[in-house]
């Protein structure tokens, strides 16, 4: 338990970070920057898990492990997404989301 910092301050910080990620995801048109916005969103969710663990259930480690697993999932997701982006770049020589509008092989 951290003295002097209410839990709502942590939650407000992570909320603001989450919606910064949402804003970036909606306004960016480049696949890599959209991926970066997703990383921001996942990161803010991690903060929430850790803070709930620390303040509400400090005798367990469940939020801690959830955050660990989310970091692992984020790594897997980033590697697959970047492989896809590189493949798309080879095919279209562009990674703007507007240019990638064909789904046929």
């Amino acid at each position, binding site marked *: *338990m*951290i*003295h*002097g*910092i209410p*839990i*709502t*301050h942590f939650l*407000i*910080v992570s*909320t*603001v970070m*989450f*919606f*910064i990620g*949402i*804003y*970036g995801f*909606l*306004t960016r048109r*480049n696949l*890599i*920057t959209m*991926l*970066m916005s997703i*990383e*921001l969103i996942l*990161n803010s969710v*991690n*903060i929430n898990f*850790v803070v709930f663990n*620390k*303040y*509400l259930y*400090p*005798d*367990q*480690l469940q939020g*801690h*492990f959830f*955050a*660990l*697993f989310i*970091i*692992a*999932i*984020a*790594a*897997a*997701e*980033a*590697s*697959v997404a*970047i*492989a*896809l982006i*590189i*493949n798309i*770049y080879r095919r279209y020589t562009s*990674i703007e989301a507007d240019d990638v509008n064909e789904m046929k092989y």
Partner: protein
Amino acid sequence: MEANVFMFYLFSATMLFFALLAVTSRRILRAAVFLLFALVATSGLYFLLQYQFLAGVQLALYAGGIVVLIIFSILLTHHISHRFERPPLMKVFSGLLVAVTGALITIFSVVRYPYKASDTIPIDTNMRIIGMQLMGTGKNGYALPFEVISVLLLAAMIGAIVIAKKRT
């Protein structure tokens, strides 16, 4: 003001500032570096909460792994001097509308909910306890998700190699 309160606000302000720069910067390489700073400040928050192992994982995996991967892919697909056009005003406006509305609704409900901080004795989060719980099968054991995530990481790695390799 106590030192830890000051550090909390310092880390939070750094994190939000660089997160905002990362989604608005018009140079993509700078955006990646700003993302790195935001993630490092987040690991500072974990240190503040005394989860040292999680902070180390955050630094090693996010800052050391994912951001480096993103920078590699930027260098493969962009010219360094490339600048984005400004997003159209309509898109900025609608994005801001969604983000601000969502943030206000969430903050409103977070502030109104009466959280009761638990006063049980906090568990000692040293490496031994983390390792025992991560590999344990009984109560508070996470052996099954641990194994599943190792298979998932292997599948993601093979998938990434197969997708990104050149067709001959």
